């Protein structure tokens, strides 16, 4: 942006320097594209390599020189992964955990955010400061006591420890939604009150429908966090039938033949695919959400 602004022509020099300007513009453009393509390659190649390795024949991982493209396309690696580990089960386990977590987070965070953004109550500012400061608290200190509590009430090896937190207004989501709710005109609430609507109806029928982009953003981040979480399932799930995909993909490596590059990459591809697909489906929400929820500060 700064460089674009820089190249804007000043009328005084226009006639004298326009030819030189055009050359420097072209050079600048070439430089920008060179950087975009060069750096972009570093970012995209590991992903492309993963997908291409997922259809390589057995033994490709120990072949030298390594190949970027498969010498022969083997689609059977995918069904093979399903035979080695209960992949479908793990996929559904992960889907279940993520769905519960996303639902909980959307409901609870929007309720709390609604109050912070649109209702007046004593202690609001102090409590909001508390909320902000909890975002800065490292989770490490609560990990062990939470484990001990879940163990004491006998809920280890269930999905409760992985999903319960989402129902209690995760601070970051509350913060983002509150920022978004603040941008909605308060007169809407006043008008609804005149019409006899209570706060819950205002929340449910006016604010939530207007906040769809922000909710989509929160939902996606919540999904990614839950789908990709490794440490939580590692601590709480020891029954292999309950494993989520994050554990399952790693579990594959301990099986006979699990050391094969192509099996690992097939599993990794299927593990990552939902996140990428979701991103493409909801791309415009994510960008819009990041812009409007005031991450700008």
């Amino acid at each position, binding site marked *: 942006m700064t460089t674009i602004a820089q190249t804007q022509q000043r009328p005084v020099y226009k006639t004298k320097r326009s030819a030189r300007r055009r050359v420097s513009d072209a050079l600048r453009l070439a430089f920008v*594209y060179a950087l975009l393509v060069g750096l972009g390659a570093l970012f995209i190649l*590991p992903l492309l390599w993963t997908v291409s390795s997922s259809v390589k024949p057995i033994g490709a991982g120990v072949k030298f020189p390594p190949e970027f493209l498969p010498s022969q396309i083997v689609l059977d690696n995918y069904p093979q992964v399903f035979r080695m580990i209960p992949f479908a089960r793990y996929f559904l386990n992960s889907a279940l955990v993520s769905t519960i977590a996303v639902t909980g987070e959307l409901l609870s965070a929007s309720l*709390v955010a609604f109050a912070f953004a649109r209702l007046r109550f004593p202690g609001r500012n102090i409590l909001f400061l508390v*909320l902000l400061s909890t975002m800065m608290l490292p989770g490490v200190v609560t990990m062990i006591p939470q484990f001990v509590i879940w163990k004491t009430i006998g809920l280890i090896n269930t999905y409760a420890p992985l999903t319960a937190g989402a129902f209690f207004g995760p601070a970051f989501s509350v913060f983002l939604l509150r920022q978004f709710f603040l941008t909605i005109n308060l007169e809407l609430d006043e008008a609804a009150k005149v019409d006899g609507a209570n706060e819950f109806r205002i929340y449910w029928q006016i604010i939530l429908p207007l906040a769809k982009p922000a909710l989509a953003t929160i939902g996606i981040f919540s999904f990614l966090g839950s789908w990709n979480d490794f440490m939580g399932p590692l601590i709480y799930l020891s029954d292999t039938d309950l494993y989520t995909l994050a554990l399952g993909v790693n579990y594959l490596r301990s099986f006979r033949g699990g050391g094969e590059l192509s099996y690992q990459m097939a599993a990794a591809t299927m593990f990552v695919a939902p996140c990428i697909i979701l991103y493409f489906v909801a791309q415009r929400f994510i960008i819009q959400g*990041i812009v409007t929820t005031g991450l700008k*500060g």
Partner: protein
Amino acid sequence: MASAQTSLDAGAITRRRPFITQSRREAIVAYLFISPWLLGLLIFLVGPILLSFYFSLTKYTLIKPPEWLGFANYERMLTDPFVGIALRVTGVYTLLAVPLGTIVALLIALLLNQKVLGIRVFRTIFYMPSLISGVAVAIVFSWLFSHRLGIVNFVLSRLGLEGPNWLGDPNVVLWTLVLMSLWGTGGGAVIFLAALQGVPQSLYEAAELDGAGALRKFWHITIPLISPVIMFSVITGVIGTFQTFTISYLMTGGGPGYATLFYLLYLYRNAFNWFEMGYASALAWVLFVIILFFTLILLRTSSLWVYYESAGRGR
């Protein structure tokens, strides 16, 4: 004000101020709305934090009830050589990964802010890796960075360079993990990009009239205006990298030697492999205090280097 008005009206009718005024009712409703968070604060944060401190003063192996030890766990940390190693590994990694990550994210954001054809495709390309979890990253990069058979070293050899033993050389491995962390900087870049687009164009135009070049505009307009976002990113970065776990657990197991014995990995082993819940809680508290200390330092010094627009305008 409207609610005060309503309560006055109500008072006029009943000749007495009702107990539940409009504003009191609203407050009660508001507290109902925030009750999930308030409950969560007690159940998932305040309670566990206090419990954690109590555990840290005991010997607790889950089998028997906690035995009181006083500060023995903390004294033990002073003589435990692995604590020093873990702190050094984690500290060096944070010191490398956070500044580099911030700079790279900012550079990518500047690049993605160029108004050239096809820029949306590039935004997607840079953002995508940040969607990918630690498990997949660990598995994929273990192959890519393989010393003899990996494609990274093969490409380097084609360019006439000899690639290091990325994951097997204790002097290199931490840098390898830093490099891998940079792969995920697209997420931060998108946030910086949003911030860059929030900088009013008029400021740049005004600076141009005064004859400012690209670098001066960047340094005196762009950086100050996005500095709150930079600080946000640095703070969350520090909190995150101090708690690095998955990558070291899956890729290096803390090795080679103890070169990637991250603090959280050592804590995890104490808690969940050796069931030293008391000692692990003490470890957790020390890390907690360290992270809090750095967060507060960053926040406290922020007035020196963060520019707050609203303060300037006197809003």
